[in-house]
């Protein structure tokens, strides 16, 4: 179980990205985190594994208080938290296998990893994961030789190689076409179900979030303004999260179970441009 208590992050520039966020993710629960660009979605999930250092508040995963961990124990805690990134964040010049095995770095010493001598069970697990995400034929290709959807599959395999207790997913579909986006979302949610793995998925595409997760949290200006089931996302709620707009094309009809409904390109193109905001957040959290 993941618990955030009163989490606040103020960047050195004075921007308050998170303002007293409290929430709990139950074991095995997949949560979609929506909100406008700059609402603090990326900051929120980066505060959990402390790629961004929270200013105050607590993060607890299982029995471990992640905030307040020292350098060594933070590294051990990060092994339990898999992360999937926007734009994949694969090491472009390494092979697919090296990228997947890099998920094991927290478990092996420097020299073993330097000479790429990973333990046999880690290697066989990596093969199994590549098989699971459908990339068995691309093991020795360089990551930059793959298509967008394939790269994100490598990203998923890398996160799973960590044997995580929690998955943090940052805009997994931001640079993918609508069809691939749906395949990737489906794969992530399926894997979470298979393993009983809880996950927080940052996603700017409301329709996509509605069709794949069972709980949605709306973030606005660093505060939680909505927490509920996908079908509770009404016009009024979306206006509360994003501001005034005509939402009729975005909201998924409650009685509609068919997936195709959301392939409407208008819905896909609804929000965009989180990349530069993310960059700013990432740079601010660097040092």
């Amino acid at each position, binding site marked *: 179980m993941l618990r955030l208590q009163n989490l606040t992050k103020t960047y050195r520039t004075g921007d308050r990205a998170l303002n007293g966020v409290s929430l709990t993710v139950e074991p095995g629960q997949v949560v979609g985190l929506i909100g406008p660009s700059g609402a603090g979605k990326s900051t929120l999930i980066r505060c959990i*594994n402390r790629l961004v250092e929270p200013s105050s508040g607590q993060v607890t995963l299982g029995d471990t208080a992640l905030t307040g961990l020292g350098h060594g124990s933070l*590294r051990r805690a990060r092994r339990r938290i898999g992360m999937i990134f926007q734009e994949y964040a*694969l*090491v*472009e010049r390494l092979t697919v296998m090296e990228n997947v095995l890099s998920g094991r*770095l927290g478990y092996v010493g*420097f020299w073993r*990893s330097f000479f790429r001598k990973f333990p046999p069970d880690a290697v066989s697990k990596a093969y199994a994961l590549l098989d699971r995400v459908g990339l068995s034929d691309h093991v020795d290709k360089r990551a930059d030789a793959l298509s967008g959807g394939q790269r994100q599959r490598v990203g998923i395999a890398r996160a799973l190689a960590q044997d995580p207790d929690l998955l943090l997913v940052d805009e997994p579909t931001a640079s993918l076409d609508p069809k691939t986006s749906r395949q990737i979302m489906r794969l992530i949610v399926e894997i979470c179900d298979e393993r009983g793995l809880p996950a927080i998925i940052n996603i700017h595409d409301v329709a996509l979030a509605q069709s794949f997760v069972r709980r949605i949290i709306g973030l606005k200006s660093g505060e939680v303004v909505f927490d509920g089931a996908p079908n509770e996302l009404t016009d009024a709620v979306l206006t509360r999260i994003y501001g005034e707009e005509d939402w009729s094309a975005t909201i998924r009809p409650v009685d509609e179970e068919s997936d195709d409904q959301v392939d409407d390109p208008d819905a896909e193109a609804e929000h965009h441009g989180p990349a530069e905001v993310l960059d700013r957040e*990432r740079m601010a959290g660097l040092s």
Partner: protein
Amino acid sequence: MTAAAGTARAVWRRPPLIRNPRLRWAIYGGSLVYLVLAFASVDVNWTRVYEGLDRGLRFVEGFLVPDFVSRWGDIAQGMQESLTMTVTATVVGIMVSVPIGIGAARNIAPLPIYLACRGIIALSRSFQEIIIAILFVAMFGFGPFAGFLTLSFATIGFLAKLLAEDIEDIDEAQAEAIRSTGAGWWQVVNYGIQPQVMPRLIGLSLYRLDINFRESSVIGIVGAGGIGATLNTAMDRYEYDSAAAILILIIVIVMLAEYGSSIIRQRVQ
């Protein structure tokens, strides 16, 4: 909008760099006046130039008939010294530059280490090779050892600085992803950073090998051994034909190194 305004505007000029026209013309005029005065102040002794033409001609004549034979023993020895100096200095320079370059990258090094490494780089870059060579020749005597030290030292300033800048320019997301797996600092460097900077590091090292060879022929003139010393001796004896042979050899070797390194650089992309 234009329709609403009633007139279709068809004239557009790019806004000038300096908006104030007076200031603009003052700067343009001032620069011109300065240039005219500066050129006028260059003192040319035309009689001396005329006398020098004769020497220049002899030099060119020497070039037309390069003499590889009569001083071949000296030339071969000088070349061998230069090449040895170049290769050893480049290897040692790279080995020292890599840790300093990593330490001088602000995005991965803590501040004290960063400052120390930047200091070493600044020191190495602030002195031209010849000045360092004079110092090392005074300390360690004539010969290739002083040259080796000079080139190693100069390599550090060059490679470490460019490596550090390349590390600062990496795609942070890749390093962040590695860090998020619980990897240690060295593992982040090895997995998240090294693959991103390696092609450029190889290219720069090969480029530095070129530079070191060329520099080895220059610092020889101040006594740091190598082909430069041979060249200097030949010039002093007015043996322009032998000097020409040396220069031609230097040009050939530099061109071969250039060609070879461009092939390797293409391969490592």
